């Protein structure tokens, strides 16, 4: 009985994975297509990869997407983590107000956040560009950092900070040596969420980047002649990078798992 269940659930999981990976497989396949078509096979070729690296627009869009994502992640993680620590020590009323406001961008459709920021930047006469785009990304990433890190901070024993200070650590060093190691996992999770959201964002970037800011999403959305196979090549490279990261992560997880079993 149990075996059959296991088999059936295996089939289900496999089908889901097939659903998830079929389009990705097609993306990869057609990145090696010799002709421009994304639907008919014209022979094997690496030519789109050459094109990709020659295209200044795509490379700059990729680079900027990456820079913005990295910066937005770092800044929002720092701001959010510090805020989570401060919030845990604040009065309940204040805390509740802040946490509710923090939820606005989370329960609001992205497009509403986007036009809100657009209106803000325009009324401040801020010229749209990578600066406004970065601000916008920080604005929508930080709330996610807070909701990821805050519960962890709240669950900490408040006397840990006191203990560290008591043993001679300055308040900042107490944070660094006694608190951060314990919320590290939550901080990494928050960073991963922030990075993914920023890296993948379209709507908010589209509205706030002005006409000088371009990331991958905006580049693709405003492409005139459909999506060229260079994008498939780009995706393939991204998939390879992600796979390496995932593989690395997997090895780490396995090591940790083995260690836990041994203990």
């Amino acid at each position, binding site marked *: 009985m149990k075996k059959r269940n296991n088999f059936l659930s295996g089939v289900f999981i496999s089908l889901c994975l097939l659903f998830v990976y079929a389009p990705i497989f097609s993306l990869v396949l057609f990145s090696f297509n010799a002709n421009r078509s994304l639907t008919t096979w014209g022979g094997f070729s690496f030519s789109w990869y050459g094109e990709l690296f020659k295209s200044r627009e795509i490379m700059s869009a990729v680079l900027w997407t990456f820079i913005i994502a990295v910066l937005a992640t770092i800044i929002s993680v720092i701001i959010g983590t510090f805020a989570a620590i401060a919030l845990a020590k604040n009065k309940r009323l204040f805390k509740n107000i802040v946490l509710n406001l923090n939820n606005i961008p989370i329960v609001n459709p992205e497009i509403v956040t986007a036009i809100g920021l657009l209106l803000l930047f325009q009324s401040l006469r801020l010229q749209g560009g990578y600066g406004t785009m970065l601000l916008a990304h920080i604005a929508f990433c930080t709330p996610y950092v807070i909701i990821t890190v805050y519960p962890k901070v709240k669950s900490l024993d408040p006397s840990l900070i006191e203990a560290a200070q008591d043993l001679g650590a300055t308040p900042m060093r107490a944070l660094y040596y006694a608190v951060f190691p314990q919320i590290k996992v939550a901080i990494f999770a928050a960073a991963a969420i922030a990075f993914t959201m920023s890296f993948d964002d379209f709507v908010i970037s589209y509205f706030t980047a002005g006409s*000088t800011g371009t990331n991958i999403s905006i580049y693709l959305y405003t492409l005139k002649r459909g999506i060229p196979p260079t994008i498939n090549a780009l995706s393939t490279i991204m998939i390879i990078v992600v796979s390496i990261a995932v593989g690395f992560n997997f090895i780490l997880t396995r090591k940790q798992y083995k260690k836990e079993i041994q203990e």
Partner: protein
Amino acid sequence: MKKILGFIVLSVSLITLAACNTNSLKVFSYGDYIDPQILRDFEREFGMPVKLIPFDSNERALTKMKLEKFDVVIPSDYAIEQLIKEDMIQPIDWTKITNLNKETSFPLELKSLLNDLKEDENPLDLLEYMVPYFWGNMGIVYNTEKVSLADLEQYEWDIFNQTNLPAVIYDSSRDGFMMALKHLGYSMNSNVTTELTEAEAYLTTIAKKNNVVFLTDEILDDMLTTKYDLVQAYSGDAVYLMDKNDKLNFYVPEVGTNVWVDGMVIPKNAEKVDLAHEFINFISSYEMALANTEYVFYQSPRKDVYEYMITSDDYAHLREAYQVKRNLNDEIFRYVPEVKKIVDDAWLKIITN
């Protein structure tokens, strides 16, 4: 900790640097509307990087021009008219455009169009403010295997209403209403409410048909596989598609259509006015104009290039689309703000039907 901080400081300063980097010629144009090689050549010759910033519609370009500074902008005729009216662009110094002669360099059809405009009851001298970049008209790209020329000649624009074949109407309020107004026998610059209402009703009936969708640039991809049999399209797009798919041909309805010209203009707040003129002059030379036309597929305003394109055997299969015939009722779009708002609102309702 320190490393991270250092990285942040570095990146932030990088960003501000990039944001403040004004030392480039900023060209604002439709996406994919310039041969990038020309920009590289210009950079090499003048030692100044060119930053190409794409827009996806004239309306958006105008909104953004109010917020940001560009050196050269390439909008369409009616948008240029608006820019002139709103005092946002400066006159062209033709003495610096040595590669073109205002009087003799343009093909007859384009010249007459611009002259008509000058002599209109609401006169407009576009050449004072812009240097033509590309021009063309709007027509119907059709699948020669499914649609006969006879049908097109019989129904003209109404073919979209008559047929049940998969069809595409260009998703732009202006071009949609142009088609309707021309079919109904009115001016496409009409500001008569009854005429506009009639056009809206006509378009709504078409929009309710299941075979009609509203697209813009997607057709450039979709029509490679002849996904639709009838497509309302600009001549340049038609050239591109006919070049890639030999099932296709181009027909310009004789009841009249939109003849358009896109031009290079220099905003009043441009920072590099001289270099902007140099750029315009550079791109207007015979070699560059030819290269650009061959890359973008739109028709050049240079008489010599234009004639080469419609006589060369290499492009014989594209002649229908390359040749900009002028029919009696052809018009150029004018800037009529009060109509634009009505038409825009109506258009959103039509396409969401």
